């Protein structure tokens, strides 16, 4: 086990959190945000749908799925940047069980 700089680990955590907060802001805007402004948005049309309905039925969900895949990709990249080896993680992960 090699000791690493705590500041490096802190930077890892901060970087992950920054992305997470961005994802949550977008998540909130496309769902709660659109609902809050549903009435004015209902005057716009998109692909035949009134816009507020489009977002509720398709737009928000599409954004959610994209955000989750982005999170997975970016999460892997951040891990790699900090020298994490995923095969090692797998080894550790498969055996991990709480010891009683």
């Amino acid at each position: 086990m090699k000791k690493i700089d705590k500041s490096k680990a802190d930077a890892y955590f901060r970087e992950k959190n920054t992305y997470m907060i961005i994802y949550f802001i977008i998540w909130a805007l496309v769902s709660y945000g659109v609902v809050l402004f549903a009435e004015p948005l209902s005057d716009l049309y998109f692909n035949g749908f009134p816009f507020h309905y489009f977002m509720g039925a398709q737009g928000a969900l599409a954004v959610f799925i994209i955000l989750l895949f982005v999170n997975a990709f970016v999460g892997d990249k951040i891990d790699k940047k900090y020298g994490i080896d995923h095969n090692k993680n797998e080894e550790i992960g498969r055996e991990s069980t709480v010891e009683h």
Partner: protein
Amino acid sequence: MNTQFFVSMAIILATFALYIGIAVFNRAKGTSEFYVAGRGVPPVWNGMAIGADWMSAASFIGMAGTIMVLGYDGLAYIMGWTGGYLLLTFLLAPQLRKSGSYTVPEFIGDRFKSKTALIIAAICTMIISFTYSIGQLSGSGVVIGRLFEIDAKLGTIIGVVLIAIYAAFGGMKGITWTQVAQYLVLIIAYLVPVIFMSLQITGNPLPWLSYGEIVGKLGELDRELGFSEYFAPFEKGSKWQFLALMFTLMAGTAGLPHVIARFYTVSTMKAARWSGAWALLFIGLLYFSAPAYAAFSRFILMTQVAGSKIAELPAWTKTWVDTGLLQVADTSADGILQWNELIIANDIVVMATPEIANLGVFVIGLVAAGAMAAALSTAGGLLIAISSAFAHDIYYRILKPTATDKQRLNVGRITIVVATLLAGLVALNPPGAITQIVAWAFALATGTFFPALVLGVWWKRSNSKGLISGLLVGLGVTLVYIFAAKYGGFTILGIIDTGAGVFGAIAAFATNIIVSLATKPPSQEIQDAVINLRYPEQMTYKDGEVYLEE
């Protein structure tokens, strides 16, 4: 007994044989396989299994109908039942996976070093999962009953026996792989009819691209008839109810023990992240399609059924009027069926579509198999959650820590069988409508586990007294609001019983925080363990230092 019965029966029996075969092939050989599928399910397949687990019989049959009846306000269910996966994947899943626990109560018991917390959490898990499974088993009984024209009770019993067999055999490993098969069955069964309807109505085989125009047309038709438009916002409830319901469903997703447990079956935190993404993609396929079903069905009903002479209604309406799901009245006594003289039950939308679109006996049988797949997959996930709460958390962790692997497996198997039989018994005479029971389960999860887990993972200062008081206050406030709103007509900002989770969550967060700060902080060891959850498996935090395993 006609051709339809035999075709439907044949397709369903074929799928049952497939599920049992998979469960036997994957029978659990140890507790790790029984509770967490050996921790090695690849993310794509895990995501597919989550999709099947998530889509219950009630949703498969009823969601499209709910959206048709509620219009825009029904979309709170679409966003609510999908958006929660972000809360789960970002805030809880990877961290709980790293903790190494088998169940949510075990995580809580270890995080707070409290047997009391473990027991309360295990009991809450059993109550929430048991309530939810009553809805599923009763729903599957209705499906089998309606399709085979036998009593719904008999249908419930058939479902119960089947699940008890393959869940007890395969445990989480068997359940996960059968859920993959069930997902494939249910997605095909759901998509085939709506694709054909899209072709017939718009000439475009892609319903998700074509139904927007139909939504616009429905609005025009409504305006002509003098009704508020199909897509008009907040016709059925206040804006605050929409927001509260959406939040309750999202936070409940992240707080339901049987959903969280689906992330224990993968190998790493990275796999948990990818699992969440794949899960929402597979779930999304269904949820993108439900509003399309709703729009097409309403369009057909408005243009081909309403406005016709009552004596000349299309052939397919006769059978549905016979089942009572479609009601035709002539209050204006003019021999013509007006739109407001037609009463439509939610369930008709998905089940009648193959007939409306003239798709033939095979597709109708396929839809029946799809509904069964949805029911079985959800029930399976719930029963494992109940079994693990009793056999692992209470029996093994509290009552008999010296139990051997074999003894633990046996207790696990027996618990599944007993829980299934009990739930089945109650399901024969359910205490409420299925969607209502499910809504209450979500509200309870939002008010109890969501705040407890989020604070447990992200706030190292949260201690056992804070957790326990938070859990109990959240539970109390949610229950009180549900009863007050439902039976007393008491509402705040128009929020009804299905939005009660908001108040429970606020109360639980506040209580947990205040009580934790007012009492002793958790030990350094516990606080270190919480900080440790921030990093991937290779990094470990201990005594203020971080180590990298090479």
